[in-house]
């Protein structure tokens, strides 16, 4: 009986290993393909085989040397700056909103929560033109500041997960602190925040990635101000009809350069991300 149980376990585990291995290959192979072809030396946009015949760093070098019309390093820097600032503002607003909704009790709190939840459901691009003219009225069009504002302004609406997280922190803690004479401000900074590392990391990660991927709103805001573009527009530009034959390989190389730092960051922070999303997701 025990033997057969063990045998069954070994068989089922082997099947699981096989399934996981196959799925792992399926998931990673597009990325391997991307990586391999970003070093491809021959051909233009497409080649009729899977593994490149010759490798070189030329595509990467071109990204940093041919900066005449497509100034990739500059755009990379822009994106980095925008991502850093918008991630700070986003994280702060998310934490502030979710703390208020979770720990503080005030009039029409529930209404705020409901409104906050549905606001994000209108298709975003429909409001872009309005956002553009609002920024213009503030004299901010075509600036990086405008981008930072756009990417972080709505962040407060993503409060659900971190509110869920705060809900799990026992309220007895707050009460004890209040008895000791702490104000709510002090409770937030000294007690709640230090306990919230997972959710902070989660918010930082998700808001840091945003600016690297948007190319529609950014393009509308920047117009012809090429020096203020972000990498996403640059990459998207490289595969438009006009550029694709020549720039396709650089597009692949650029994509790798964008993906690598985010991947590293993600792997490093994975633990907290899981904790944050788990704790927050459960309570929602």
């Amino acid at each position, binding site marked *: 009986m025990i033997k057969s149980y063990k045998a069954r376990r070994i068989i089922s585990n082997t099947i699981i290993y096989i399934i996981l291995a196959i799925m792992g290959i399926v998931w990673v192979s597009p990325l391997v393909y991307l990586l391999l072809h970003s070093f491809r030396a021959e051909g233009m946009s497409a080649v009729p085989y899977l593994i490149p015949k010759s490798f070189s760093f030329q595509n990467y070098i071109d990204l940093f040397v041919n900066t005449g019309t497509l100034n990739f390093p500059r755009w990379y820097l822009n994106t980095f700056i925008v991502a850093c600032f918008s991630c700070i503002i986003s994280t702060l607003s998310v934490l502030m909103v979710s703390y208020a909704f979770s720990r503080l009790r005030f009039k029409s709190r529930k209404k*705020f929560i409901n409104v906050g939840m549905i606001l994000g459901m209108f298709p975003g691009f429909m409001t872009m033109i309005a956002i553009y003219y609002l920024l213009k*009225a503030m004299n901010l069009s075509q600036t990086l500041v405008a981008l930072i504002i756009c990417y972080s302004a709505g962040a407060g609406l993503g409060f659900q997960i971190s509110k869920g997280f705060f809900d799990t922190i026992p309220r007895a803690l707050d009460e004890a602190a209040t008895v000791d004479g702490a104000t709510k401000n002090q409770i937030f900074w000294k007690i709640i925040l230090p306990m919230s590392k997972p959710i902070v990391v989660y918010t930082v990660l998700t808001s840091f990635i945003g600016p690297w991927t948007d190319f529609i709103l950014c393009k509308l805001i920047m117009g012809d101000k090429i020096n203020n573009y972000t990498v996403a527009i640059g990459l998207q530009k490289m595969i438009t009809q006009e550029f694709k034959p020549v720039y396709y390989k650089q597009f692949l190389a650029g994509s790798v350069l964008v993906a690598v730092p985010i991947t590293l960051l993600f792997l490093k922070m994975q633990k907290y991300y899981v904790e944050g999303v788990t704790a927050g*997701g459960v309570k*929602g």
Partner: protein
Amino acid sequence: MKYIDYKQLNPFQKFAYNFTEFFKKLPGRIVAFFKAIGRFFVKLFTGIGKGVANYVTRFIKGDIAVKLSYLIFGFGNFAKGQIIKGLLFLATEVAYIYFIISFGWPNLSKFGTLGTAVTQIVADGPFKKTVWGHNSMLILLYSVVTLAVTLAFLFIYIANTKSAYKLQQLKAEGKHIMTFKEEAKEFLDGKFHITMLSLPVTLITIFTIMPLIFMILIAFTNYNRSHMPPGTLFTWVGFENFADLVNVASGGKKGITFIELTKWTIVWAIFATFSNYILGMIVALMINKKGIRLKSLWRTLFVITIAVPQFVSLLLMNQMLQVDGAVNILLSEITGQTVAINFFNDTAFLARATVIVVNCWVGIPYTILSASGILMNIPADLYESARIDGAGPVKQFTKITLPYMLFVTAPSLITQFVGNINNFNVIFLLSGGGPSTEKLYQAGQTDILVTWLFNLTMNQQDYDLAAAIGILVFIVCATLSLITFNLSKSMKDEEAFS
């Protein structure tokens, strides 16, 4: 079921009970939801009525300083020694008056017509000069801004009169009048929610709510390719755009397209959400199974795909799925014959299936991440008792894991469902809407409503129609999620840990 009966159930039965109750209550909840909306409006209007009544009473009962503060902001505060607060009120009034004269009124006054002056081209020697008329779009947008600012102003105005009246009462009762410093301190404690919410709410109001209202108003205008500002004016047309949409009876192609796309959008959202959810959970279960080694390696393999910007991976997938792309090359090499599958240009079924499968590639890693932790929280004795009852792994999954997960993650599932209804990226970058068909108006067979909207606005400049569709989608999504959220919340005590 009585409370006592409920308490005697084992945890497994409790979940099953809760799960079925959830769906039993749903119809009632929908009715309750609309009743709640009705109550909300009733409350709103009675609230406004009460507010006006109070406003008048305060004026009658107030002393001269209070009465003056109805005209000059902060006067009540000045009279009682609250100089800084008074100055702040006064500054608001001055700023608002300046705003309304220089910016607000010029726009708001044209709100009814959205502008009348037509752009003209006049001769300037051998040259031509453009004399710009009104810009309907800016008039509409700036009117929305003005209305929002006015609303905020009214709020401060009421606060000002209240404050003045309260000070009068305090003084009459001989109580302590707070200094500015004391009041400021209050914002770090008793009124801390105001401190915390003011910045995010301001940002959201400016960059989400105002544009949203603007777009909603657009649905009632004729802002389209034949009425393009700045050169030409557009104006109000009432519900014409909505009539356009439901005009299926006369065989209008837009109406047919709208219905077809709505159907596919719903099918897409269901499949995209649940395929990710269930498959992701199964993978997470496999990774977390006892005795499986290299857990972090497996997880990492999936997680890397999250870190690659979505538009890059989707465009890459698009290239790989072309007739001469990597997937076809791979299939050719495996089968030894030339395979040239036209994934996005053959049958609707193939393209739709492809889109859903690729979406799994994108979405499953997220589910793995969020499910891993939750799965570990499922009480082990549940599985134990199930095993003793002779339940196999499949039965355990359908009877324990799935209900538990559904119960716990229902809110986030709804968020995902709504997210998929608006999932622009996957469709737009991956299939571009293909395969094309002559049966739909300016849409392909994998186009969902949002991508169609995008085409209508960007290529055809039919902002009016797009806004109308946007509103319908918005209403459906919002209703759906409000009901589910409030329903699921009622089942879980928000303060379970307190």
